[in-house]
């Protein structure tokens, strides 16, 4: 888990990559079994990963061609940005 920073209320923000879009319920179950679920709010970002991001990621990481993949990742991330912003806003409204 990579530490990203602290939000305005002092909650720590981490990110975790799992290579698999279907890992959400697994992580949730693991946290419950470890009795730490009350300390976490898991937010899945996979619905915002578009095709350009996927192709860029595959070229960059899968085929080890970052010179080809990175510009695509950049474009894909730009396209996904508004959706991710609204996800953060909705999350804050829901949990904070």
């Amino acid at each position, binding site marked *: *888990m*990579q*530490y990203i920073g602290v939000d305005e209320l002092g909650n*720590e923000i*981490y990110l*975790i*990559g*799992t*290579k*698999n879009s*279907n*890992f*959400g*319920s*697994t*992580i949730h*179950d*693991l*946290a419950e*079994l*470890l*009795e*730490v679920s009350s*300390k*976490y709010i898991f937010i899945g970002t996979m619905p915002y990963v578009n095709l350009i991001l996927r192709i860029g990621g595959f070229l960059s990481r899968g085929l080890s061609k970052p010179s080809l993949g990175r510009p695509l990742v950049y474009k894909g991330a730009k396209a996904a940005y508004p959706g991710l912003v609204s996800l953060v806003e909705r999350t804050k409204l829901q949990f904070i």
Partner: protein
Amino acid sequence: MNYLFAGKSGVFETIIAALVFLDRDKEIELELEKTSLFGDIEEDNKRELIFVDYDRQGNKVYTLGTPNYMLVNDISTELCRVAGLKHMKLQVIEINLKGMDITYYLSRLGKLPLIGSWFISLAKIWVIYRKDQIIKECKKMPHPKKRKSTPIAAKPIK
């Protein structure tokens, strides 16, 4: 301490591994018949922890099927570390046996409409055919209770 047997599929070889751990491997075919979980790909596809049974000490034994099962231990360790827990209440045992990929692909084909159930039956037959080898391999693995957990971060922490 709870135990989690993680593999590519959570309802085939991992179930046998859990039964071996529970000392219920003497009549494995009968045990597999008894448990409704064996070959239940709907349960597997939920990607949730599958409860098998309690061991003699009352610890819970689970299985989990996910293509990235090697990450499960790292994720559990990280969840504990960030939450500030010193001791992890879960022991993850990765199950990686010969022939598991074939079972996995057969179980994926089990999602197909109409002919899917045929592939599931084939996957069950494939696992039962290898049951002795699976049991032998599972018994060779270090006992989870004697394992040392290694707190390794999934990625380097900056």
